[in-house]
C-alpha cells in the first residue's frame, strides 16, 4: 500500500513538473534516510540530528542541487527567514580575525571533540580571497576584490552578511554550508568575515 502511494505521488509529481524530472526518486531517497542512521552505529545520541534532513536538504538532494524554479523559490524564501542580524545593526567586525576564521577548517568533525578552539569557516578550502594565500580551492567563486568591485556599498555589505549566514537565501542548493543558520559560526564570527570581504583595509581588497 505504501509502495503504491509512493508511486502515485511520484507520478503526480512527474505530471506537475514535466520539464524537471526529479533525478532521484522519493523511494530511493527514503531508502537512503533509513540506511544512514544504521551506517553510523557508534554515533553519540547528540549527533543523531545530523542524520536527519530538513526540507531544504531533502529537496536539494533529490534534485541533485538543480531544483526547478518553484522549488528554488520556496527554498530561498524559507532560508531567508532564518537569518538573524546583530542586535546593534553593525554588520562589520574585524577583518584580521576574519582572515583567521577563513583559514581554519577546525570544528565539528569527530576528532574535534571536546572542542579545542572555536570552529572555523574554512573559506579558503573553496574560495580565493587574498593574493597572499595561494593555497585556495575553486569549488566556490573567487572573492578577490569582493568589496572593491561592489564599491563597499551598504546594501552589498548586508548581502554579504546574508550570503555567509545562509548562502541558500541567495543561491538555493548552493554547495556552501548555511554557516549561521546551522550554527557553525557565531554572529560575531560572521561579522568578522563580512569585514574580511567588505572592508577597504582588508587584504581581499588590496
Amino acid at each position, binding site marked *: 500500500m505504501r509502495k503504491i502511494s509512493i508511486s502515485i505521488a511520484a507520478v503526480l509529481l512527474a505530471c506537475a513538473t514535466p520539464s524537471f524530472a526529479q533525478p532521484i526518486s522519493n523511494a530511493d531517497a527514503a531508502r537512503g534516510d533509513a*540506511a544512514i542512521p544504521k*551506517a553510523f552505529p557508534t554515533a553519540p545520541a547528540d549527533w543523531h540530528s545530523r542524520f*536527519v534532513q530538513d526540507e531544504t*536538504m531533502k529537496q536539494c*538532494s533529490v534534485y541533485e542541487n538543480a531544483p526547478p524554479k518553484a522549488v528554488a523559490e520556496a527554498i530561498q524564501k524559507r532560508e531567508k527567514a532564518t537569518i538573524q542580524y546583530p542586535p546593534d545593526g553593525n554588520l562589520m567586525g574585524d577583518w584580521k580575525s576574519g582572515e583567521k576564521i577563513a583559514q581554519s577548517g577546525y570544528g565539528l*568533525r569527530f576528532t574535534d571533540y571536546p572542542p579545542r578552539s572555536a570552529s572555523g569557516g574554512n573559506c579558503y578550502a573553496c574560495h580565493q580571497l587574498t593574493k597572499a594565500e595561494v593555497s585556495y580551492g575553486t*569549488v566556490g567563486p573567487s572573492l578577490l*576584490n569582493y568589496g572593491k568591485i561592489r564599491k563597499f556599498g551598504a546594501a552589498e555589505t548586508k548581502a554579504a552578511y546574508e550570503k555567509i549566514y545562509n548562502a541558500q537565501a541567495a543561491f538555493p542548493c548552493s554547495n556552501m*554550508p548555511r554557516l549561521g543558520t546551522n550554527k557553525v559560526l557565531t554572529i560575531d564570527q560572521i561579522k568578522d568575515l563580512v569585514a574580511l570581504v567588505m572592508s577597504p583595509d582588508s587584504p581581499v581588497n588590496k
Partner: protein
Amino acid sequence: MKNRLLILIATCVAIFAATSIARAQDETEKAVEKYRQMLKQDPWSNPGLLDSDRGESLWKTPAGPNKVSLEKCDLGKGPGVVDGVFAELPRYFADADRVMDLETRLMWCMEKLQGAKHADLVKDPYPKGGQPVKDLGAIATYVANKSSGMKFAAKLDKAKEKEVVALGHAIFFRRQGTHDFSCATCHNDAGKRIRLQGLPYLAKPEEAKQVVGQWPAYRVSTVQVMTMQHRLLDCYWQMRMPKLEMGSDVSVALVAYLVKNAEGGEISAPGLKR
C-alpha cells in the same frame, strides 16, 4: 568606464594568477602520473605491494577461533579463486543474501569460515596515520592486485544489485549534517579543487573510470595503504558525520555506485595517491 577597465584588468590578473597555480597543480599531477608510469614499468617500487604480499600470506594462513585460512572463501568465482574476482565486485551473494564489496565479503568470510566476531571486525578496522594497513585491508590489497590490469566489469544487473546502485546514487547526493555536505559537494563537477587538491568528478563515468580502480591505494601523505572503505570513512569525517561503519549498507552502496560509474575503467591497485 574607468571602473570597468579596472575590473577587466583585475579579472585578467586574477585569471592569470589562477592559471599559474593551476599550472603548478598540473605539474604536480604530471609528476605523480610519471611516477605512476614508472611504477607500471617497475611495479616492485610501489610500497603498497609489501602490504599486498602480506595480504597473500594472511590469506593462506590459518587464523581466528576456527584456525582455518581464507582459501575456501568464495569471492564470487568459487571458493579460493582470487584472480580476477575484484574486477567483478561488488556483486550479490546468495549465501549472505546481500550485495557485497570486497572488504565486506572478506569480513563475511572471516566470520563464517574463521569464526571471527562481527563486532570485533568493525570495531577499529583502519590504521592510524603512519601505521600499516590492518590485516583485512592487506588481504583486500592482495585480492585487488590480482585484478590489476583488468577492467571493471561488475555486472550489477540483478534486481538487488540495481537497487544497491540506486541507493548509492541517492546517498551520493544526500545532503546532511552541520555543513549540508554530500559526496556531490566535492565530486559533482569537473576541474575543481579543495585548497590545492584536485577533486575527481565521480558522478561522471569518464572521470570515475580514471580513479576508482586505483583503490586500495598507497597514500604518500599518510605513508600507508588506504582501502576504499577507509577512504569513505575519511570523506564522512570531513562531512562532519560520525564514524562510517565498515561494510554498512551505505558504504557498500557507495562502492557499488562508484564502480558502476567506473565500468570499463582499468584497475591498477594498489594505486598511488598524494
